[in-house]
Each structure stands twice: as structure tokens, then as C-alpha cells.
């Protein structure tokens, strides 16, 4: 399961600690509108789960429930196993809109996530330098967010997430605010990060190509109220999922066939209010 190559030194900084996440019969409604209906899902350590589904089916809501930003109406979200002590923030988000504080520099934005923890200044500086070099941002330590391109902003957000050594990364369309080239490069970076040291991730996306590229399992939600429609497993290791892969294309087409009617219906539903 782990993707740590043999060549890395044993003292290699450990960012990720495995933890299983289990969702039991999650149902959630806003007012009269049921958004999620009876969702069951288990995510095991080191695994990447992609969640796809038509617009408005409750993907973002599901992710907020998983990270404890909202409480489900019924059902439970369980963390299996004690949250590891070395993890400062076991469930860590990467947001679509980056969510960087414009009044803090790159360095300051990362330090924000560390300041509430009993860490010495020295240690926190070490962590910051380390995550910045992992995300190729060392030269931009003192830059303001407004000076960065979208792709760089999202890399800062990824660096910030790495800094707290998450057990599970929760990503809500982290690449959809970016242009397609930047998206491609950042996807490579994410895969690279995972190959160096595998982590657990829930990755919400609109983009089926991203889903088949990054996910070990792909959860297809139906249109609202969101139910698990199917879970598609891809056995091919991430390292072998380059471009022009027929097998992946096939999975992608299969996913689209699953979603197409729902997506069309969801579209009409939105139009009719």
C-alpha cells in the first residue's frame, strides 16, 4: 500500500500518518431539501478516494461533514484508531479558492496553521522551510499572496496542509480554479507527493480525467439527494497512469455513462428552480 521508495533515508520527515475514516449512514438535509441520503463509505489509510457526481449533489457538503465543519443530521463519521500524536491537525482541507490570508506572506500563511500548537519558533521555521521546498516555493517565502499566480497560491495551500502533518487530506476541487496547464502540473505534483510518501485523501472533483488519474477508488454520487451510486476501483498504480492510457479512458467513459443522465436531469432541475 505504501509508496515510499527504498532510496529515501530512514530519517525522512514523516508528514502523513495513516488513519481510517468511516462514514455510517450519513443523511443530511438543509431545511426540507435532503442533500445526502444514507451514505456509507470506508476510507483506509494511504488510499485516495475521488468523489464525483452532478452539480449540487452534495459533494462539498459530504466533505464538510467528514472534516467536522458541519454535523450530519443522522449517521456518524468515525476516525478509526487514535489520532497520531505527531499529527497537528488530523483532518486537513485544501480549498478550491485557496483560502490564503491576503495580509500574510507565504511564510506567514503557513505559520498560521502552526501558531496555535506548542511548537518552538525554531521547529516551526524548520517545518516551514521543509514544506516550502517540497512544493518548490522556497524562493517565495516573503511574497504576498497577491503577487502569486493561481497555481502558486494553491501550492502554498498544499504546503500549509503538509505543515500540520495530516492523517487525511480533504480536497474540494483543489484544481478547478486553475487553467488546464497549471492543473496538469499541479496534478503531477500531487501524484509526486503521494509517491514519495503515500497519504490518505478524499478528492472531490468535477473532472473525470482527474478522478481516474488520481483515485484508487472513485465514488459516483447520484443527483440530489446524493446516494452512492457506484464505487469504481482502479487497480493500476498511480505511477503507471500516464497520459493516453486506454484503460483509464475506458473507465472515464464508463463513469461518464453512469453520470450523464443524472447530470442532465440535475441541470434541468436547477433551471426549473
Amino acid at each position, binding site marked *: 500500500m505504501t509508496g515510499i521508495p527504498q532510496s529515501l533515508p530512514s530519517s525522512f520527515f514523516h508528514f502523513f500518518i495513516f488513519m481510517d475514516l468511516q462514514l455510517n449512514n450519513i443523511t443530511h438535509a438543509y431545511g426540507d431539501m435532503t442533500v445526502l441520503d444514507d451514505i456509507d463509505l470506508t476510507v483506509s489509510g494511504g488510499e485516495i478516494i475521488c468523489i464525483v457526481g452532478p452539480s449540487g449533489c452534495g459533494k462539498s457538503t459530504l466533505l464538510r461533514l467528514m*472534516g467536522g*465543519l458541519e454535523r450530519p443530521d443522522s449517521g456518524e463519521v468515525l476516525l478509526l484508531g487514535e489520532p497520531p500524536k505527531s499529527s*497537528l*491537525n488530523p*483532518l*486537513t*482541507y485544501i*480549498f478550491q*479558492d485557496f*483560502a490564503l*490570508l*491576503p*495580509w*500574510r506572506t507565504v511564510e506567514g500563511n503557513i505559520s*498560521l*496553521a502552526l*501558531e*496555535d500548537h506548542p511548537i518552538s519558533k525554531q521547529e516551526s521555521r524548520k517545518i516551514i522551510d521543509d514544506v516550502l521546498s517540497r512544493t518548490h516555493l522556497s524562493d517565495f517565502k516573503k511574497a*504576498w*499572496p*497577491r503577487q502569486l499566480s493561481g497555481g502558486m497560491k494553491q501550492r502554498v495551500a498544499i504546503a*500549509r496542509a503538509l505543515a*500540520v502533518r495530516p492523517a487525511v487530506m480533504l480536497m474540494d476541487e483543489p484544481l478547478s480554479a486553475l487553467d488546464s496547464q497549471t492543473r496538469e502540473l499541479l496534478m503531477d505534483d500531487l501524484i509526486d507527493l503521494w509517491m514519495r510518501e503515500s497519504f490518505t485523501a478524499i478528492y472531490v472533483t468535477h473532472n473525470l480525467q482527474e478522478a481516474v488519474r488520481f483515485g484508487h477508488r472513485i465514488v459516483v454520487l447520484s443527483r440530489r439527494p446524493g446516494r452512492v451510486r457506484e464505487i469504481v476501483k482502479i487497480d493500476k498504480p498511480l505511477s503507471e497512469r500516464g497520459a493516453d492510457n486506454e484503460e483509464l479512458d475506458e473507465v472515464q467513459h464508463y463513469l461518464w455513462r453512469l453520470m450523464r443522465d443524472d447530470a442532465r436531469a440535475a441541470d434541468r432541475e436547477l433551471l426549473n428552480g
Partner: protein
Amino acid sequence: MADNETNPVPFRGGGFSHKPSFTVWMMVFVMLILFWEFGSNIGFISNLVLPAPSEAFNAFLQLIDSGMLWKHLRASLQRLILGWTFGTLLGVGVGLLIGLFSNVRAGLSPLVSAIFAIPKIALLPLFIIWFGIGEGSKVATILFGTFFPTVIATYGGVDNVDRSLIRMGQSFGLSRLSIVRKIIIPGALPAILSGFRISASIGIILLVAAEMIGAEFGVGAYILLAGSLMATDQLIAGVSILSLMGLSMAWVIGKVENYFLKWRV
């Protein structure tokens, strides 16, 4: 239609953005003063209507010579600084409470809106009864007058802080206090500082009004006396002092903004 004709695409962009130019402003200012002086000299502007700038300037020099300028200025600045400082500090405090706690908001924000609309100078007689005819009532008027706009600017600023940043703070497990200190207050700061600009000019208006109602010293008292003697040169000199006071406050706030909001541009 000749298809071998080439024309540059006409430029239609540009404009609608401002470049500050000190020289242009200086030229306008100097020309205005020169025109005014010239008009007064040839009698185009009657001396009864408006004194020449040189006369107003002479009145100003006289004010310095007699040593009265410092007396008036000190009295005025003391009132203004006391009233404005406490008014804005309390205003920011109460504004944050209203912005952060829904109970406080439910209780106070209608009251704030109701009192905000009252011209505070109308309350001066009450303040005189409560705080005495001396400094107390004048400082209270300014304090009261600057408090309410600051409250409204502050909680408006808090309301406008990007919710997704707050959610980010929560998702990293920041304490409530950290979220307030590191996300909400910096996010509300631009609105709070532009509130300061407004409250500074309100402060000057109330200062003059309060000093006109009963003060021995102060720029407002000086202007009132000049007015009742029809000494228009002194009146213009006094008003210019007020204008300079306003400009310097705006300048200081501008510097503060440059420092605290350097992340903006």
C-alpha cells in the same frame, strides 16, 4: 471597399484610473489664490463680500504674533484628540462585540442605528447639564459623535470578512481568539480605517459647533467672535486652520493605512 487599405485599430482603452499629481493640484491652488487676490484688488470681488487672501493671511500672522494661535489651537486639539481617541476606541470595541456575538447584535444594533441618526450637537445642552459647561461637555459631544460611525464601520467590516477564511481557520483547529485576532480583525481593518476618516471629519465639525456654544478658547470660539464682529479676514483665517487640521488628520490616517494595509497593493 478597398481591401488593401490598412488602418491602425483606434485606441479606446485608458482613462478611468487616477494618478495623483501634486503639481497639478499646486497649480490649481495657486491660480485660485492669485485670481482671488487679483479680483479683490481691482474691486471685482468686493471686500465686504470676501476679504483678499492677503488680508486673511495678515489676520493669521496677527494671530501668531499675539500668541493667541497656540492657545486656541491647544484647546481645540486637546478636545479633538481626547474625544476622537476615546470615541473611536470605544467604537471599535463595541463594533467588534456587535460583529462577533449575535446576542450583543440583537440588543445593541437597533439602538446604535437609532442614535446614529441624531445630530449629536442637538444633545449638547444635555451634555452641558451632565458634564458641565467646561471641557467635559465638548469632549463628550465629540466622543459621542465619533463613537457611532466607528461602531457601524467596524461591525460592517466584520460582517464583510470572507467566510471562507474563517472556515479555513476552523478547519486548522485555530482557537476562537486566534480566529478573531488573526482573521477577523485584519479582515475588518480596511473598513475600520475608512471609518476613521469619516469620524475624523465628524469630530472637527462637532468640535467647532461645541466651541461656538460656549468656549473661551478654541478655533471655533475664534471663528464665532470673528463672525460676530464681521471680521471676515479673521473668519477666513480660522476656517483655513480647520481645513489644515482636517488635512493633517487625513494625512496621518493615510500613513497608518499605508503601513497596515501594505498587503493590499
